[in-house]
């Protein structure tokens, strides 16, 4: 399948072609200047070689136009390339609105991947071709880096926070997955495959797997079993709540007790679970215990996936899809909660 002696990598994502064009253009510019300099040096060496021992060079003929020319021209070229590079970067940085959320947790020395449907994999990631995928990354121990050369994309997985990347495969195939940030003994064995499949094949692969609950459904289970629900109440029993209701929280601004405001994103929710007193929502007492050590990185991502599906206060959890406050980031969650929380959410209390 792969060439035994490739000189250029496969190009398999929506933006890999653009990165290649940028790279090749830069390479041509670099080659031009290198050959220019080398050619001039070789020419001058031959033309102005010393012919007898007491010879000295001519007086310098200073030329301001030359100095300005070779300062400004490279600068302009670089600024143009910077602008192009920035455009490509913004594209790589900002996931499209219809991206589906996957998570990958790094640990020494493996990648634990979870699909929105709940399917889990180790060191392998199956994805449907043509579907933009937003991958949320974190790490259980040291810094890792999720690198898919064929997609021209890479993002560090940093312990204690979430980072994310997105990509969309354009052709089916098996592509390298590397850990690119040195992480210890088996760093070079922390490799695997990204398997891009036609959507139909992906569906049948999912069906054949042992998919448990969806991520949001597992999160809903946790929300009950960890007793989050006893304090974070909304609707009829909101009087009994000892913490803010989480409905409609995700993606919105929260006012804090010390006057600051924060955007309730993945990192904020994560911090609020692990270090509840770090940022207190205005109007509430710092009574929440920490869940540090009680929830794993994977459970955290499930809880967040669940919270993401919660709609505005007052409506049932299932009503989250496309709610007025849900914002663009909710689109991915919307796809998940279309089929899960209705059945999984309220049905779970007696599970544990």
């Amino acid at each position, binding site marked *: 399948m792969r060439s035994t002696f490739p000189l250029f990598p496969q190009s398999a994502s929506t933006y890999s072609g653009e990165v290649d064009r940028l790279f090749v253009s830069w390479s041509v510019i670099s080659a031009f200047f290198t050959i220019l300099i080398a050619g001039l040096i070789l020419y001058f060496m031959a033309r102005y070689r010393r012919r007898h021992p007491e010879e000295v060079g001519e007086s310098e003929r200073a030329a301001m136009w030359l100095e300005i020319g070779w300062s400004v021209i490279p600068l302009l070229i670089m600024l143009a390339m910077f602008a192009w590079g920035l455009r490509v970067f913004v594209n790589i940085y900002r996931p499209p609105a219809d991206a589906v959320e996957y998570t990958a947790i790094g640990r020494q020395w493996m990648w634990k991947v979870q699909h929105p449907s709940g399917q889990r994999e180790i060191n392998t990631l199956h994805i449907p071709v043509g579907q933009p995928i937003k991958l949320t990354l974190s790490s259980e121990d040291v810094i890792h880096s999720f690198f898919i050369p064929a997609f021209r994309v890479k993002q560090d997985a940093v312990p204690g926070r979430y980072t994310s990347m997105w990509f969309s495969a354009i052709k089916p195939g098996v592509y390298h997955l590397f850990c690119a940030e040195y992480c210890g003994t088996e760093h070079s064995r922390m490799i695997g495959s990204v398997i891009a499949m036609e959507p139909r094949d992906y569906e049948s692969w999912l069906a054949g797997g042992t998919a448990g609950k969806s991520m949001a459904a597992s999160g809903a289970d946790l929300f009950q079993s960890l007793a989050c629900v006893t304090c974070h109440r909304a609707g009829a029993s909101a009087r009994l709540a000892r913490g803010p209701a989480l409905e409609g929280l995700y993606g919105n601004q929260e006012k804090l007790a010390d006057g600051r405001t924060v955007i309730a994103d993945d990192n904020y929710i994560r911090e609020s679970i692990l*270090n509840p*007193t*770090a940022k207190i929502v205005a109007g509430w007492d710092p009574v929440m215990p920490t869940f540090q050590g009680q929830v794993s990185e994977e459970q955290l991502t499930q809880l967040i996936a669940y919270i993401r599906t919660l709609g505005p206060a007052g409506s049932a959890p299932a009503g989250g899809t496309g709610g007025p406050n849900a914002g663009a980031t909710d689109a991915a969650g919307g796809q998940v909660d279309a089929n899960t929380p209705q059945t999984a959410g309220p049905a779970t209390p007696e599970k544990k």
Partner: protein
Amino acid sequence: MASSPIAETHPANTAHHHPSLQHQFDTLEQQKESSTLGMWIFLVTEIMFFGGLFLAYVVYRSTYPQAFAAASHTLNVLMGGINTAVLIGSSLTMALAIWAAQVNWRKGIVLFLLLTIALGSTFLVVKAFEYREKFEHHHVPGPNFEFDGPQPEHAEIYFSLYFIMTGLHATHMVIGIAILGVLAWFAYKGKYDSSYYNPLEVTGLYWHFVDIVWIFLFPLLYLLGAHLHGAAH
């Protein structure tokens, strides 16, 4: 080492009268300018050194304001205040030692250097008592750390920075006291007078710098709690 045959022939060496003039310099003035400039540059490196620490402090202080305020509240402002006064006093005696050299009062140089050493040592003794208090309260980061305020793990970061910042400052004090001891000995031997007292000046620069570092550390570490607690209530 100064009397190689070549050195003899060097015209500049005719200026070799002062016993404290080193061979690479032509004049005492040049030597003085060089060592003073050298110390200023060294102090720039010191600013960058402590700057890295202050940056780490600022980052965490703004990330975890409550924990930092609570942890800061446990410090003994009285002891810190006394130490601030002691250090400012030691800067005064250091300056007086230089003044004594300028007016050729040799005994005065020794006297004021010893006073500076005494004040510096006082600072360290007070600091040692503060450290002991931290050990007793298990406020020293590590496996035995305990803190009964909010976010104890973030308070631990505060105490980590507290010990590193004050510890490095104290290390600078110890080095300064050692240098002052050497200077006091030379002054006792009569090496310094109004024609040559550059080592006193250069060491004075260092001593004042260490003092200034403390002037920054004191409000950042000790007074922060009072301010934030006032705001919270």
